């Protein structure tokens, strides 16, 4: 519907296309083709591995690369120490992996590889399926840790300490809903933030193209300001990519804190 008027379809960039293996079937009707989404996830995983492996030389006097990796792990370590406490140390590998995967995925989607013909950048974090799986993983860890550590006492999460008895019947359902909404809000936040930014960039790009095609006057009045705005929004998107990865890691660590220490 929105694509009919303009030449640039801002939603085209989110199309998932199989690259090879379209005929692979896991079971009846479940296709496991290698898509562009899977390709960019694989690229992200390889880049994160290279980045971390390059800094694991364990030299006494760290070089620049080792400092970069150590500042990242130290950042996540501090995050968990501050939000969960001493018990948070064992979650550093998971939160670090999550943070780096989302951060690299967000940033790789902004790399202008579209300049090379027939290469299209793809931001896999702009898909609810991907962020949904990440959120379900975080939520499962919270549930498993909570029930293993506290047993059925974990349900006291829904009744904050010191609640008067008549209020329990109101507080408990609200707390339960706010608990169950967590994986959705976690996944939705990342996916919408990434998608909105990329849609905005493509809409502005269509303004530049349409303004330039409309002659010099329209190009100067619409095309040039739109292009300047695009550059500024791109800078903002790099900031948002970092913030959203940080917020995902931060909220996951907060939820883990609930499971570790209850209220």
């Amino acid at each position, binding site marked *: 519907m*929105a694509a009919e008027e303009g030449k640039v379809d801002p939603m085209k960039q989110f199309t998932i296309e199989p690259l090879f293996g379209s005929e692979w079937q896991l079971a009846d009707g479940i296709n496991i083709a290698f898509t562009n989404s899977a390709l960019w996830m694989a690229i992200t995983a390889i880049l994160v591995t290279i980045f971390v492996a390059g800094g694991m030389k364990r030299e006494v006097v760290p070089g620049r690369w080792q400092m970069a990796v150590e500042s990242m792990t130290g950042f996540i370590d501090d995050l968990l120490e501050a939000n969960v406490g001493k018990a948070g140390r064992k979650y550093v590998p998971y939160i670090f992996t999550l943070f780096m995967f989302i951060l690299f995925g967000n940033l790789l989607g902004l790399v202008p590889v579209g300049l090379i013909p027939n290469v299209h950048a793809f931001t896999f974090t702009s898909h609810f399926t991907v962020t949904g799986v990440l959120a379900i993983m975080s939520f499962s860890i919270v549930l498993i840790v909570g029930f293993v550590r506290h047993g059925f006492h974990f349900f006291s999460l829904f009744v904050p300490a010191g609640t008067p008895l008549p209020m329990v019947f109101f507080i408990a359902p609200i707390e339960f809903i706010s608990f169950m909404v967590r994986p959705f809000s976690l996944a*939705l*936040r990342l996916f*919408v*933030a990434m998608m*909105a930014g990329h849609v905005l960039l493509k809409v502005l790009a269509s303004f530049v193209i349409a303004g330039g095609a409309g002659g010099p006057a329209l190009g100067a009045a619409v095309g040039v300001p739109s292009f300047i705005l695009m550059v500024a929004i791109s800078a903002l998107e790099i900031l948002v990519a970092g*913030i959203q990865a940080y*917020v995902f890691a*931060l*909220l996951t660590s907060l939820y883990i804190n609930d499971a570790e220490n209850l209220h």
Partner: protein
Amino acid sequence: MDATAAALLGAGLAAIGAGLAALGVGNVFASFLEGALRNPGAADGQQGRLFIGFAAAELLGLLAFVIAVLLIFR
């Protein structure tokens, strides 16, 4: 008014929600900066809470965007 026009109007109205979320996010950072300038020593320790507030305020604007998208591509 046919259903498509009503849906597009609703998508436009959802933009109000995005604007209100902008107010909310601005409020979060403005309050943080105000507090941080009064007591710079305590500012670094509160950055986690700053981003929790930011995330909570931002989510509602993103939900407005989701509503708009659902209405346009329904």
